[in-house]
């Protein structure tokens, strides 16, 4: 559905994107994960036709955006990172305007407006001016303005920025439902757990380059990330160290031990050796491989908001 090849863009001295490639299949939610300044918004803006790339191509639904810009934009929905709404107008008037630009009119426009207002839970405040909305309500309206014309592809640039966890879950649900209705989504975020929960495939981007992409499992494999196992008990490091040959130990101290174990069989092997040697173990905790670890491996830093 979306095919991005060799995208590069610089702003003066800043190389915002250098050689970005990815493809998104129909009905997929593609996560775009990266820290501040990674190049997420720049990528989205180029796909939406708001920025021209220095080099590279973007095809949406088989159409080249450089040639068929207007037709591509007709099937594209964009939810910008910075809320872009008319504060003086009501939610309904905003949606009528944005929907109208895409050619909706009359009954259909009114119907779609009601539908998206319902989806984002703003029906009862629809006729209040947007300037009286809370930040979270504006976010939701911002999202609904990207959905009003029923786009085939939606580009979401951090749509959950700065809203409470409850509303965030709600937004994730909205996107999931849209996609189950046949929409394709590119979802930009720097919340790891959102990408984990929502996206079928994820690209990790930093400094304008995609470091890795794939499903969560593929990424975990790729980064060589394993389960993190923490063991506590009345033991000394001298007692256990001979039993842990070939295992990455992250932290070692008397009474506590944290190790990284790549797979299930290695895990049961290691724990088995500890138990059979009669080491007094009080507690074992296992943390499954996560995007966070992958991210740290790939970028060498933590992802924080």
């Amino acid at each position, binding site marked *: 559905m979306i095919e991005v090849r060799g995208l590069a863009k610089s702003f003066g001295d800043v190389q915002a994107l250098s050689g970005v490639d990815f493809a998104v299949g129909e009905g997929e939610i593609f996560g775009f994960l990266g820290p501040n300044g990674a190049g997420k918004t720049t990528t989205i*803006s180029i796909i*939406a*036709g*708001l*920025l*021209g790339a220095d080099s590279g191509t973007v095809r949406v639904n088989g159409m080249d955006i450089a040639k068929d810009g*207007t*037709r591509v*934009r*007709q099937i*594209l929905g*964009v939810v*910008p990172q*910075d*809320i*872009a*709404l*008319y*504060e*003086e*107008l009501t939610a309904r*008037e905003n949606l009528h*305007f*944005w929907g*109208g*630009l*895409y*050619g909706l*009119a009359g009954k259909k426009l009114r119907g779609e407006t009601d539908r998206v207002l319902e989806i984002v839970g703003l029906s009862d405040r629809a006729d209040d*001016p947007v300037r009286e909305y809370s930040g979270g309500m504006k976010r939701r309206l911002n999202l609904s*303005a990207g959905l009003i014309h029923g786009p085939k592809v939606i580009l979401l640039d951090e749509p959950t920025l700065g809203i409470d966890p409850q509303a965030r879950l709600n937004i994730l649900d909205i996107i999931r439902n849209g996609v189950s209705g046949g929409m394709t989504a590119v979802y930009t975020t720097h919340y790891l757990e959102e990408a984990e929960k929502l996206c079928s495939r994820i690209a990790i981007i930093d400094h304008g380059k995609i470091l890795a992409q794939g499903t969560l499992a593929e990424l975990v494999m790729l980064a060589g990330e394993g389960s993190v196992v923490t063991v506590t008990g009345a033991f000394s490091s001298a007692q256990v160290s001979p039993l842990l040959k070939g295992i990455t130990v992250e932290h070692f101290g008397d009474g506590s031990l944290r190790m990284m174990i790549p797979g299930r069989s290695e895990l049961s092997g290691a724990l088995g050796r500890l138990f059979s040697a009669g080491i007094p173990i009080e507690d074992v905790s296992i943390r499954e491989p996560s995007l966070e670890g992958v991210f740290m491996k790939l970028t060498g830093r933590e992802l924080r908001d």
Partner: protein
Amino acid sequence: MRKIFLIVRKDMKRRLRSPVSVICMLLIPLGLTLIVGLVFGRHGEVELSHIKVLLADNDGGMAANFFKQGMKQGKLAELIDVVEVDSAEGLSLMNRGKASALIEIPKGFTSSVLDGKSTQIDLVKNPRESFLPMIVEEITGTMTVMIGGAVRVFHEPIQETRSMLAADRWPTPDELAGLLASAGPRIALVKDYVADTLITLTSRTDEAPAEKPAGTFNFFAYIMPGSILIGLLFISEITMRDILREREAGTLDRIFAGPVRSAHVIAGKVLSAFAITLASCLLLILIGRIAFSIEWGPPLELFALVVGSILMCVGIMAFLFGFIKSERGADAMLPVVIIVICIFGGAMFPYEVMGPAMQKAARFSPAFWVIDGLKLVSIEKAGWGGIWRHLAIVYGIGAITCAAGAARLRVRLTGQK
């Protein structure tokens, strides 16, 4: 076409919801008309100092005296000339339009006031003047409230000294003025508690004489066209400035993310600036008619000239905003540009009071042709034949600036890609 219409409708709605900036800009030309009119005015009602007020005192008592002295006091004395007349003489002078207003104090006014009975003061306003009689009405109204209040507040001392006053000893004018001045602030406090005023002020405007006396003219008609042009430039400035605002707010990008061409956006923006400026202009003309009694002349010619002028203003602004990158840039540059256009075109100081060299230079300013055209239509009642040159020049400049502005904006808006 529909997309352009949607953009215009949206912008109009937004303006209606937050009209403050446009209203402020409307006040500029109105204030300017008033001030310049008063500074340069030498004719008729334009001299604000010494508003001529006739006063017919049918009472002759203490309260009436009190009232009269108040009117002649301090600042008021600079503002109004009170001429005492008798009732009949006053009415006949008013009928000949010789004063801005006639105040009539009825017989028995003093005793009613002192007894705390209601009474009234009549104010007859000159129908040919607009705001001078209003000033007099305002002053008289204040006086009545003060006297009424004073009677309430000082009821007892008044009663005590009444016999003395009635006997022979009148307070001197100075004493009265002093009392009036010191009572002022106290009365202001009391005013709200005095629910029913003792003295009611009834004012009326007697039927205007059928014909205006020959040789009078409305000085404001010379001032307001220039002020209107200044207003139009400022209003088209703030409406075109919306392009910067929308870019800042991200809504412009959002529009461009839809299936919209830059031509739609530019046409929409220029048209909404045009529509808002036109509406403001019609409002100014209406206010000029009502507040400054300006007869605007043949309506079709006037309308044609106004439309052309607004095209010109909006075109100039579109062109300039094709270069300006930020609101700060606009703040720094545009007022200067507008003032220069206006000064050369004779919008600040009327063309008639410019020196001959300036008068020559004025003809090269687009503003001149708007202002001169408006004056021809309103003062000389010129028809198409009289203003065709003005129309041609104004529409010509309007077409050129709009085209250049649209081209320049297009470069700006697509240049970012």
